[in-house]
Each structure stands twice: as C-alpha cells, then as structure tokens.
C-alpha cells in the first residue's frame, strides 16, 4: 500500500510517539531502519491531491510529532509505493545523512514572523519623504493618480528591507538560522522564518516583543508557531 512520508525522526523517538493525532483520520505509523525512522500514513492514491484534508494531515501530523520530539519534515506530496521501497531506496542508503540532519535539527523549531504595514501610517510616511508624491496629492487626473499610487507603492517597498533587517538583527542572538520568505501583498512588510532552540524560545519571543512594540503601530507583527522546522529541513 502506498505511504505518504511526512517526516523523519530518530528510531528512539519513534518508539514513544503517540500515533494518533487529533483531527486527523488516518493513523500515523513509523517505519524504522537502524537509528532512523519515517513518519507515514497509508494512502489509497499514489497521486496525492493537494486537497484541504491532505494538506492539513501533513501539517498536523508533523506538528504533533514536533511537540514530542525532533522531526525533519518531508516535502508535502512525498509518496512511496510501500514500506519495503521506503527502506530500500531511502532509509537504508541515506541512513547516515538522515542521522546527521536529525542531529542538526535536534531540539530546534521554526518560528515564523509575519509583518504588515498599517496603511495610513505607511502612506503618510511616504508622503512625508517624497516631495513629488506630496505634489501629486489632491490632483484628480488619471495620470497623476497613477503616478501617486506608484510612488506610494515604491516608497513602501523601499522600507521593507530595512524593517526586515532591523527585526532580524534584534533577535539574532537567540536564533540558529534565518530564512526569509517572499512577500505577496502590497502592504506586506516581510515574512521571516527563524530556527530557534527550544530552550531559547522564551528569550526569542521576548526580544521579538520588544522590536514589535518599537515598530508599532507602523508595523504589525504576528508570530506563527513554533512549528516543525519546515523551512530548514533541506538546508540545515
């Protein structure tokens, strides 16, 4: 039977992992080989659809496991034909590499920080700095409005890097690694994932609170997580 492979963990941890996950129908199982193990759920389909249920299952199974132990998330949609194939083509030949990756991520979690701009504050700041934009203000012909809008958008974009860098610097002493993500909305400031030691989480959040207070109300910050180290599985 085909298996969805959600993540990797140590064989020791696999022994004590509770296989049932709240809100997930499929029960998880572990396939152990030597000192490493893969966290899987059985699936009927080899073509795993990116359905709501499948996406949430993948995420929740990994979240639940990450609460108990160190997991290395696999890419969503990783399906193997059966248990034998998983061992023969992945766990056995990659045994040592998987072990090293697990060592690298031991006790570490991902925390995602998403920051957005307050529109009024952001627009006002650009108008204060950009004389041309200030001149265009109040004109109602289409050209002028387009140019004004374009200048506001550009002015906001120009602040993103500075705000991201400032935030990263403010928390850097508490983090192991940093992975910026791309932003997609005009008022997004930045999204950055941090790899943090479980023991350093409280200190990290304290520093982040400080910088969030400092940049508010211009910037609104959200903390998502802690999460399994999705953004650092392939790079750590």
């Amino acid at each position, binding site marked *: 039977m085909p298996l969805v492979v959600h*993540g*990797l963990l140590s064989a020791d941890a696999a022994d004590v992992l509770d296989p049932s996950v709240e809100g997930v129908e499929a029960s998880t199982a572990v396939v152990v080989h030597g000192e490493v193990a893969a966290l899987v759920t059985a699936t009927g389909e*080899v*073509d*795993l659809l*990116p359905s*709501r249920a*499948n996406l*949430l299952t993948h*995420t*929740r199974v990994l*979240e639940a496991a990450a609460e108990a132990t160190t997991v*290395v*998330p*696999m*890419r*969503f*949609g*990783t*399906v*193997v034909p059966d248990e034998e194939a998983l061992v023969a*083509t*992945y766990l056995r030949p990659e045994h040592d590499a998987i072990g090293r990756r697990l060592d690298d991520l031991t006790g570490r979690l991902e925390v995602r920080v998403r920051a957005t701009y307050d529109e009024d504050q952001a*627009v006002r700041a650009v*108008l204060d700095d950009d004389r041309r934009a200030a001149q265009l*203000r109040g004109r109602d012909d289409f050209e002028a*409005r*387009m140019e*004004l*809008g*374009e200048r*506001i*958008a550009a002015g906001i974009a120009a602040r993103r890097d500075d705000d991201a860098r400032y935030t990263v610097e403010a928390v850097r002493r508490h983090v192991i690694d940093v992975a910026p*993500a*791309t*932003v*997609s*909305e*005009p008022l997004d400031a930045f999204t950055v994932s941090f790899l943090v030691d479980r023991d350093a989480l409280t200190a990290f*959040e*304290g520093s*982040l*609170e400080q910088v*969030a*207070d400092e*940049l*508010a*109300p211009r910037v*609104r*910050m*959200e*903390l*998502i*997580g*802690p*999460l399994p180290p*999705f*953004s650092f*599985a*392939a790079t750590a």
Partner: protein
Amino acid sequence: MSATSLARRPPSGSLAEVVDIILDKGLVIDAFVRVSLVGIELLTIDARIVVASVDTYLHFAEAVDRLDIRGKADEYDASLTDIVGGLQEKGAEAKTKGALQGASDRGGDLIENSKQRIKSAFGGGSGDDGGGEDEGDDDS
C-alpha cells in the same frame, strides 16, 4: 509586557497559512516523483510576486484621498469648535448688555461666516457659487 504589539497565531489555523508554511519546504526524496504539487505550485507562483499593478496604484491613490478627507474633517471639527466658542462669548456679551437684537444680528454674521469656513474646509469653493460659475462658463 503582556499588552504587546505582537500577535500570536496557531500554525494550522487556516488553510492559506498551511499552504504558505509548507509549500516548497521539506526534504525531497529524489528516488520518488512528487506527483501532487504541480497544481499548487502554479497557483502560488503568481501570488508570491508582489502585486504592483494599476489596481494597487489606484488603491494607494485612494488611501491618500482618505487621509485628505480625514484631515479636512479634523479641520472642520476644529473650526466648528471656534465658532461655537465664539457664539457663546458673543451671547454672554449680548446678555450683559441686554441687547438681544444685536446678539441675533451677530449670530447671523457668525453663522454666515461659519458656512464659508465649512465650505473652504471641504476645498471645493462653495456649492451655490460653483453652480453659478458653471453657468457662466457655458455662456461664454
């Protein structure tokens, strides 16, 4: 420290969040084909580029309009306070003199004056006079 500007959200709260978090992330087993992601990848490539479009520009131009309107509303509130303050002063003055007729005349002036101020606060000259100007333009 508890009343912080930092909002906290659970990870798997929304599907959009989940897609955002797990997309393109995680280890890949080279030996197996990842079959399922094509659809999602296509969808999100577009979404990941900051939308810098006509819509965005017009949206920001409107955001400036909103700032302007709010600024004018504040100006209007301020001038209204002056007017009310002035009326009260004048009223008191009139009472002491017992010249009620005079007070109402002054009141009339003040109301006229306040109309002008409200009109100028909203920028567009005055409504009535504007109509007159338009007619004048048409005639010439």
